[in-house]
């Protein structure tokens, strides 16, 4: 083989990579906040029995959970603009795909979390005279959210990885910058190795933290 590694072009382009990393984090954070909020709403809708509320929420969740994210992002970038009255740039398209995908998964986490609280807990609250909202706020949600946290943190990890898919529609995140640099400098081995390392450095601590947290939850019962 005798390949001579040469990282000088990678280091020389560090400013570009930093901008890419920044964009990746902006995209991930935006989609996490929006996705969780929308997920709470959709999860609540799935929890209700009225078909007019439940059915659209269920359809939404199933569509976004059962199609590839890459397809969702491409669809929002290439197909959606044709039927949409407003302009869709790469960031908007990527955000739409990733946010809706995160919302669909977190809706299920919310729903499962609330369902995991035993019926007796609602009843005990009701029996001392609590309203439905008080039962939810004081008794059920505090227990449910503790159980949901590891799943949400895993979502955040997954989302961070999925941001790299936005490179296919030329959103200037880390992966896209790397592609540009490696085409100009003919250094795919060095470039993509470094990108992998950057992602690893970013995500591994987060994943470790989730594992620790899950263990701690298990210990405290």
């Amino acid at each position, binding site marked *: 083989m005798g390949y001579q590694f040469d990282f000088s072009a990678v280091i020389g382009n560090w400013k570009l990579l930093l901008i890419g990393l920044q964009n990746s984090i902006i995209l991930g954070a935006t989609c996490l906040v929006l996705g969780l909020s929308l997920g709470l709403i959709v999860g609540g809708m799935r929890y209700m029995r009225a078909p007019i509320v439940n059915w659209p929420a269920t359809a939404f969740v199933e569509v976004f959970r059962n199609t590839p994210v890459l397809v969702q992002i491409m669809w929002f970038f290439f197909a959606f603009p044709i039927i949409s009255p407003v302009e869709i740039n790469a960031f908007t398209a990527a955000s739409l795909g990733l946010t809706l995908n995160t919302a669909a998964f977190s809706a299920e986490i919310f729903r499962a979390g609330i369902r995991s609280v035993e019926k007796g807990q609602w009843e*005990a609250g009701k029996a001392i005279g609590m309203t439905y909202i008080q039962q939810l706020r004081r008794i059920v949600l505090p227990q449910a959210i503790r159980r949901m946290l590891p799943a949400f943190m895993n979502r955040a990890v997954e989302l961070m990885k999925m941001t790299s898919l936005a490179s296919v529609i030329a959103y200037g995140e880390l992966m896209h910058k790397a592609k540009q640099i490696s085409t100009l400098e003919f250094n795919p081995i060095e470039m993509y190795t470094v990108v992998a390392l950057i992602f690893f450095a970013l995500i591994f601590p987060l994943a470790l933290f989730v594992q620790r947290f899950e263990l701690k939850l298990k210990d405290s019962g």
Partner: protein
Amino acid sequence: MTEILRLRNLHKSFGPLEVLKGIDLAVAQGEVIVLIGASGSGKSTLLRCINFMEIPTSGRVFLHGTPVGRQTSSGVSYVERELTQIRARIGMVFQHFNLFPHMTALQNVMEGPRTVLKCSPDECRNRADNQLRKVGLEWKADAYPSQLSGGQQQRVAIARALAMEPEIMLFDEVTSALDPELVGEVLITMKELADEGMTMLIVTHELGFAYSVADRVLFLADGNVLEQGSPPEVLTYPKEEATKNFLRGHSSFRLPEPQLD
């Protein structure tokens, strides 16, 4: 004798299944009533209709002579707000305790006064301290439910209900889930409560306990009160064949009085 609770022709169905078939019952202030009956005879459903955990299908509940709900042409209609207030005035203790696992014993007991009654922090704390002391668990105030024995959890659950200063207490098989050696402490707590004059409706299979605390025993069968009277009348000299059969099943094996001194 002041009447505190009256049920008039109370019916409850779940779909096609009629569980309560017209219960009439008047309960005096301070009276202790024990409900017995086979599994599935509707004992839990009766208790749960009294504090509106279940809405009766028809019939009426009166508290201090005041009917709950509004009579309309198509039956009795209930407003959730009124039911919430009724539930706050009637304490209920469950078979499986249902303590809030994310709160300490003290926080469990303070929760009702705090969230429902909107008491001041001092008042909440006072009530909780008093009730925990009463059930003998002030020394476990900072323990979480998972750190308590079943008997202790059930006593905290009783304290939680008492902190609301209820007018009536309902107990639904509160010792059925306990290991035998933990049953006594819970029954003693209930006996003390009865001696203080609390109005109580108790579903239990502890017939010895029923005999010694009840003012009146009701035998429920198939959604009706088949037989009622003083503990000796129902438990020692039952008249109905169904009551006799039930008691036979509960006293097949008996211990002669243990000599413990």
